């Protein structure tokens, strides 16, 4: 498999009135063609900022360093015009709240054909035919009539389908889904996840799926990156991650989810809360909440160690030789 996206030492800082926020700290990962990569973490862990940087969608007060290579092309530092050519064409994104990412004043037709007219230079007429095809592909019934509807005439699940159809119009190589099902009910969530899996096969796309729901990750992803307070703390193929989580944070995260088929008296909790991004302390950001914390954790951030094929973890527990 060829490498589609390569992120190296991506660091994102935000300058605010109250000081600098370190949103993402030297994140590196690789996405292969056709793969689904899950990025999991709690709110504020930097998941959305990471993909924001890939898409060039960060606000003005962000300072980004590192490198993001898409099909061999460096995306960071690209000017707006060049970025606009890639965005919506080869990389597409769907967002958490489909209502606020669709324009309420325009019909679905206007919003969908615009993409094709701009990127493919199609006429409105051809673009409309293509858009209807795509609405059919995402299983919107009566697509021919529905294409003239306004966003408010659709339900939440349908709107998310419209967003997906719109993202697929130019047959992107990479689809980034930022919490695509968080705002939806479980039965609708299951429909959308199924749909995403189907179209991924059909259109031979790679996907980055951002979520905080470990259940969604388990069902949809091939490979997982676990983020905590701006740092990628563990990465592994999905089966390996769930079978033998290595980082204490991943272990805690998996333990904290109530499961349907076990009957624990008490849930395992991670004490405390996410550290303040304005005042990060030295060392591992998880040290204050970790049950296996050592002295070194509070002073130095561990490097990553390889733990079997395709997986690595950043934790001092696995640096056995170096810790005295």
């Amino acid at each position, binding site marked *: 498999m060829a490498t589609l996206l390569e992120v190296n030492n991506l660091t994102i800082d935000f300058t605010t009135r109250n000081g600098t926020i370190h949103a993402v700290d030297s994140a590196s990962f690789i996405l292969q063609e056709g793969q689904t990569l899950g990025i999991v973490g709690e709110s504020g862990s930097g998941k959305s900022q990471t993909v924001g940087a890939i898409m060039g969608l960060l606000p003005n007060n962000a300072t980004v360093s590192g490198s993001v290579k898409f099909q061999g092309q460096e995306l960071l530092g690209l000017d707006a015009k060049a970025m606009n050519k890639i965005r919506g064409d080869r990389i597409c994104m769907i967002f958490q709240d489909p209502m606020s990412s669709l324009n309420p004043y325009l019909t679905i037709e206007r919003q969908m054909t615009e993409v094709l007219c701009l990127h493919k230079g199609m006429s409105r007429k051809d673009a409309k035919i293509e858009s209807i095809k795509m609405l059919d592909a995402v299983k919107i019934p009566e697509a021919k009539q529905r294409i003239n509807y306004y966003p408010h005439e659709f339900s939440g699940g349908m709107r998310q389908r419209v967003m997906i159809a719109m993202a697929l119009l130019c047959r992107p190589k990479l689809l980034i889904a930022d919490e695509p099902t968080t705002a939806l009910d*479980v039965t609708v969530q299951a429909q959308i996840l199924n749909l995403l899996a189907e179209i991924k096969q059909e259109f031979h796309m790679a996907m980055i799926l951002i979520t905080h729901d470990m259940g969604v990750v388990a069902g949809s992803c091939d490979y997982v990156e676990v983020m905590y307070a701006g740092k990628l703390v563990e990465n592994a193929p999905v089966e390996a991650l769930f079978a033998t989580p290595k980082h204490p944070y991943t272990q805690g995260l998996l333990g904290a989810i109530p499961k349907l088929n076990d009957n624990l008296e008490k849930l395992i909790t991670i004490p405390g809360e996410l550290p303040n991004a304005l005042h990060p302390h030295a060392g591992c950001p998880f040290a204050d909440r970790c049950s296996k914390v050592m002295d070194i954790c509070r002073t130095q951030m561990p490097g990553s160690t390889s733990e079997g094929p395709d997986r690595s973890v950043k934790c001092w527990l696995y640096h056995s030789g170096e810790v005295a």
Partner: protein
Amino acid sequence: MTPEKKVLLEVKNLKVYFKVKTKNRLPWQAKKKLKAVDDVSFSIYEGETLGVVGESGCGKTSLARSLIGLNPISSGEVIWKGKNIAKFSSKEWFLLRSEIQYVFQDPFASLDPRYTVGEIIAEPLTVHEPGKSQAYYREQVLTIMQKVGLTEKMINRYPHEFSGGQAQRIGIARALILRPKLLICDEPVSALDVSIQAQVINLLQDLQKEFGLTIIFIAHNLSVVKHISNHVMVMYLGKIMEYADKYSLYHMPQHPYTQALLASIPEPDPVVEKSKKAVLLEGDLPSPINPPTGCVFRTRCPIASAECAEIIPALENTNVGAAHQVACIKV
């Protein structure tokens, strides 16, 4: 032998309808009504936790709000201590509000941003036990803060200085300071991160044991409900679809909706999840203003037949487990 369980609250044929403004309604046309809760009956036993689950718009919140008088009841009875709350005098209402307390979904929206934590938690106490000494109020507030895991130094801070999990603890402390008998938790953890969610659930379970609380726990997350509840009630479009104790409901779900709901939950286990053959529900929740005739679930039901459009299924006992009730003519 388990001792006879005491019913704390009984709901009989409760209906909560809302008026809907209809544009261009002609005088002879009927006014439209939104049936948020339609003919719901259940009992809740002392010391137990009743989980209420369902998708958004199924009437879980309207049901809970009507139990404490925040929504008008259209018809039916809510019986508290042997008396229908609709016939309560204002004095009795006053007392009722100290015995039933409510924890809301959004911890920040439910806390007054201009009050300090101490003031927020003390407010119910100053209303229901007026004229006590300041030292008494302070001591009560500090006791309950310590019980929910807040420290003494937080008493003078404002809500914005807290994280979501801590703010929810403040909400719980405010609800518990009057030592209520029944605590209604309306999606108390759905706004919180997983690791914080687990903390709050464990806290609720500890407090339940300590204070002998009865809890109505509303959520859309079936795994969370399973963890905390004794009995579970599944609602769909204002009606109860299935009611059973949790083991029976999760291991032998009878209603096709419950089965679909359980199958839709993504399990945090890639082996299970990827081999799962999901029974997916088609479509969305129909509008509660225009609910389907007969069984409200029939438009999305995989086993619906022509009969389902005509007969409104009643919630009936099944031969599965003890007190396992289902509203479906096919079961």
